[in-house]
């Protein structure tokens, strides 16, 4: 948890790592569109192929993808069962009287599960190959055109930057406060839920007070360092859109095109 700032990011030197974060976010969006365009289970082969290609190019080990799926394994099982139970259909395979197992239900269950697995795996590809800092930069740049509608793109990115910076500090601090209250005999482990929530107050209040103080001091320090909003600000690390980025985007578009053609042909 301490290294939450790096998120799931696995440093690397692959072509996928080197892509502009804006490109990767855009491709991610295209990929989501792809998985939602799929209406028949075997067409998932297209986004799956796309994902495998990304995986091979990024040289990210499959176990990292597995790790990101692990927390949602119960959700997946639950979704599968839900679809299996509540989807109707014609082709009855098993009749228990009060409930019929149908071929359509089985297909639908697999269909939904595969879609979620593909979405989560794709999203983790983005976070595994892009540092949160690069992501923040990418989001800021992509949202910049929205400034015309007074959308606070810079402020949003600055907030994300500061949050990433301070999460580890606040984690350390809450650990210290917890120890201090335990030394005064506080008990965080026994009692019912209501008692336990109440026992958190001696941790939460000092943590809030400390966060406010941090915010205040940080604001002063930022002002002292000439911060005056996003106006006229430059960045040391420029995002660079290279040929590789163009190529990656074109490939993604090609995948979508193929998918659409297939969808039209096999309507």
């Amino acid at each position, binding site marked *: 948890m301490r290294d939450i*700032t790096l998120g799931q990011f696995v440093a690397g030197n692959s072509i996928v790592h080197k892509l502009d974060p804006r490109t990767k976010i855009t491709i991610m969006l295209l990929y989501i569109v792809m998985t939602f365009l799929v209406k028949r289970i075997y067409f998932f082969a297209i986004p799956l192929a796309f994902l495998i290609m990304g995986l091979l190019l990024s040289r990210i080990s499959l176990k990292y993808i597995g790790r990101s799926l692990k927390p949602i394994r119960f959700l997946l099982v639950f979704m599968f069962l839900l679809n299996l139970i509540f989807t109707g259909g014609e082709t009855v395979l098993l009749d228990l009287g009060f409930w019929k197992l149908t071929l359509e239900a089985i297909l639908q269950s697999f269909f939904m599960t595969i879609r979620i697995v593909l979405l989560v795996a794709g999203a983790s590809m983005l976070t595994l190959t892009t540092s*949160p800092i690069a992501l923040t930069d990418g989001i800021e740049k992509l949202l910049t055109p929205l400034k015309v509608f007074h959308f606070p793109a810079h402020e949003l990115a600055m907030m994300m930057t500061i949050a*990433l910076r301070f999460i*580890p*500090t606040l984690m350390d601090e809450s650990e210290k406060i917890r120890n201090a209250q335990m030394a005064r005999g506080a008990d965080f482990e026994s009692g019912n839920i209501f008692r336990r929530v109440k026992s958190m107050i001696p941790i939460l209040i000092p943590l809030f007070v400390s966060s406010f103080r941090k915010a205040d*001091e940080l604001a002063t320090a930022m002002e*002292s360092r*000439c911060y005056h909003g996003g106006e006229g600000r430059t960045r040391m*690390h420029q995002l660079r859109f290279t040929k590789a980025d163009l190529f990656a985007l074109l490939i993604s578009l090609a995948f979508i095109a193929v998918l659409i053609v297939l969808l039209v042909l096999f309507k």
Partner: protein
Amino acid sequence: MIQFDHVTFRYENADEPALCDVSLRIEEGSFVAIVGHNGSGKSTLAKHINGLLLPSSGTVTVCGLQTNLEENILPIRQQVGMAFQNPDNQLVTTIVEEDVAFGPENLGIEPNEIRSRVDEALASVGMTNYAEKAVHHLSGGQKQRIAIAGILALKPRILVLDEATAMLDPSGRKELIDTVKSLHKTGMTVLMVTQYMEETTECDRIVVMNHGKVVCDDTPKAVFSEVELLAESNLVPPETVKVRNALRELGYSIPDSVLNAEQLAEAVCPLL
């Protein structure tokens, strides 16, 4: 270079003014310590130098610019770098070099120029090898040196340390003081706000604050000899000076210029 003219400042809802008719002049290239107990007004004074606080009456002029004019604030803050007490609460980004770049980025400087400023600043605080490290893995002293690097990247002429050593351990404190001393040698004007008298022995000048007023403004050797004034201001002279003063009471005549252990031994041994 810095000029306070009859500056009075009152915080909202405060009965007593935090600064009371303070006039002060600080020359270019000097190394000045501002000392006082908690609540003496020393930090309030420091925050006036870069316009974080504006005088209720009187004026503060920095490099020829008055702080109470809105359009002067950014140029002044670029000239006056300020480091604060808590090493954790003044770094903005996760990665060291990105944090150092924060100031120049705010000024809208060319990316290539920022890069070279960042490298230069990290080198002058001796943290080049940490450029790509995460800030929260550093020690307190290292964090403060990064904060100083972030200031240097703005190319200021004045460095103000607002109790920047208070939360550091002795080795972190030494790291920071050594860094600041070497910057002073390159011509930087340094103002050090502190309550540790040990840190002030090598300054050109010590300004003692009490109840929002400057009660003494002189060289370290003169200030440390003002035993009563220091006691009234709730300050304790460095340990060696305390011993020196006690030995004087025993009848040993030791000059005011004795400020450290070596000098004391040098002065007292011939008397034995």
